[in-house]
């Protein structure tokens, strides 16, 4: 079974802090994604990566950056956390376009509160 793990289930940070959210997948997937989920807004794509050291902006990249130094690990960085970044953060991974299915496998989520 594919396993996607996230470093924390719950996190509380102060405004202005630098925050790192880590995601690791164990199925050698090429693609990795970071979403945030907010009530009434569904899931919104922040950043994605389709290869090591490659990254692309999603729909709401402002205030975030990412790092993918190894294939299995995709990190989301909040350079200076703000209260409007309080949210549920979900990481996902998927196979490349050569696969027959593009289903995404999700981690359990990190609920981040910025005070």
């Amino acid at each position, binding site marked *: 079974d594919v396993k996607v793990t996230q470093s924390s289930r719950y996190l509380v940070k102060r405004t202005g802090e630098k925050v790192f959210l880590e995601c690791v997948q164990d199925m050698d997937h090429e693609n990795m994604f970071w979403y945030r989920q907010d009530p009434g807004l*569904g*899931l919104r*794509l922040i950043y994605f990566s389709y290869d090591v050291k490659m990254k692309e902006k999603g729909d709401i990249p402002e205030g975030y950056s990412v790092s993918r130094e190894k294939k299995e690990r995709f990190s989301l960085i909040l350079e200076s956390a703000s209260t409007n970044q309080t949210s*549920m953060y*979900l990481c996902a991974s998927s196979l490349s376009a050569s696969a027959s299915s*593009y289903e*995404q496998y999700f981690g*359990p*989520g990190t609920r981040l509160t910025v005070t």
Partner: protein
Amino acid sequence: SQQGEEDPQALSIQEGENATMNCSYKTSINNLQWYRQNSGRGLVHLILIRSNEREKHSGRLRVTLDTSKKSSSLLITASRAADTASYFCAREHGHLSETSGSRLTFGEGTQLTVNP
């Protein structure tokens, strides 16, 4: 926006009844996927239907796709209390790159409550 609409936003039924959730979208798609999310957890993939398919089954799940109407529906038959969750449709469209998969755009979800 490429996000569509999911309907209804919330659905409450009795165990044993069928639950139908609908999803509409605005742009062309490669395929459409349905996911389930238990409260406060990550999403789990349920079923994928390709743009050239009209209907697909998986256990108690039945998904239809009407590309002319740009809509899809998820039917859960003989519902159980354990089916209580949020259900999301996700449209796959475009390509991330020449060698990568496509991106998904998620709807806001339908909250299903199955009462025992």
